[in-house]
């Protein structure tokens, strides 16, 4: 599947993820894409290497006199490391399963109208991450964005004014675009979407509903 991915992360997102300056919801989306995309995983290695080179080249600030002994004491006092959880089988990549608390069948969906369902994932407030379930052939209401929206396809596909997005593809949209994603007719579409500002729906009803539904 990884070779089929057409829409990748930008340098700016990749660098911000490597530097650690993205809001948690964006980091989750980036980490999930990289879990599905070998090419972006390799690019992340390069950006982390930039971070390593900067660390190597930075000035030094002296540690306190007893710092080495204090660190050894920390090591001796630490409990043995818990083995990392084995890679989970399932439809969804591991970072997403961590936030859901399970695979796709553990998602607690809420209807948001016209057959579309969503589930908001627990992240810091600076940005929102949510799963969207769009029935085959259905549309997410036409909306614009005040900030940036990342949409990662997990299953199925959607089409909007920009392109077609299939599994593993990520669409990066800013405030310039009003778009109406429509799920492919072939299968229901499941996406992970992250926004750093509330969406703006152009039709009246969704805008009234927005504060209540936290779209």
């Amino acid at each position, binding site marked *: 599947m990884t070779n089929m991915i057409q829409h990748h992360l930008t340098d700016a997102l990749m660098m911000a993820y490597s530097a650690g300056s993205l809001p948690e919801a964006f980091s989750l989306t980036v980490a999930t894409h990289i879990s599905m995309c070998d090419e972006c995983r390799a690019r992340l290695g390069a950006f982390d290497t930039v971070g390593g080179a900067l660390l190597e080249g930075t000035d030094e*600030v002296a540690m306190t006199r007893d710092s080495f002994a204090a660190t050894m004491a920390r090591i001796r006092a630490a409990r043995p490391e818990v083995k990392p959880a084995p890679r989970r089988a399932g439809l969804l990549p591991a970072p997403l399963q961590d936030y859901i608390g399970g695979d796709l069948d553990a998602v607690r969906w809420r209807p948001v109208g016209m057959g579309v369902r969503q589930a908001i994932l627990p992240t810091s407030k600076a940005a929102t991450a949510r799963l969207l379930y769009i029935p085959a052939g259905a549309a997410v209401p036409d909306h614009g964005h005040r900030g940036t929206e990342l949409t990662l396809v997990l299953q199925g596909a959607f089409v909007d004014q920009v392109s077609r997005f299939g599994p593993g593809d990520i669409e990066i949209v800013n405030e310039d675009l009003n778009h109406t994603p429509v799920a492919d007719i072939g299968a229901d579409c499941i996406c992970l979407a992250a926004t750093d500002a509330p969406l703006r729906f152009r039709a009246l009803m969704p805008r009234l509903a927005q504060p209540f539904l936290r779209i």
Partner: protein
Amino acid sequence: MYDALALMDAPAPSPLPPPRAIRTHGAGKRSGPGQVTTAKDMENTEWVSCIAAIRDARDEAAFARLFGHFAPRIKAFLMRSGADATLAEECAQEVMATLWQKAHLFDPTRASAATWIFTIARNRRIDALRKQKRPEPEDLTWGIAPEPDQADVLALQQESDQLSAAIAALPEKQRVLIEKAYFSDLSHSEIAEQTGLPLGTIKSRIRLALDRLRHAMK
């Protein structure tokens, strides 16, 4: 990793010259007579051995050498990110303790010691300064081969060194912004506010810097 630096950018037609012949060879052929091993490469491979000694023998002397080199740099990194001296000291100790505890997870065919330590320090910073989790990509490896190929290790360390040199050679205005992006915990818009530079200027300088790095790694 060899092609990773060329892949910083999403695939796009490149006007850059074709890669040097050495980059097209398999890793095993890379240590031919034309290969120059610099003092920095020697230092990089020494850090790799130190981490292996911690993993295999709980070697405190090896840990002390890593500590002497990296702990003051981690502390500086955290202070530039906004931590005060006390918090930076504490976090630097924790990062070094994590290095000890996770020494078995270090893969010298994928990262230099500095790169690996940077990722630990970055994650500690996100936790300490932002109180956020750091979602990580699913790990592909099912366990690291006990003895990585030494040619692969050397090649990776040399590439890391080459990138360091390329960063040091960046024009001052570009290098400062790359450092800010990695060290300051600020988004591009926040850097714009802090420096008074227009956002477009920041974005274009960073793009130019990445183009130069890409070029230097060809």
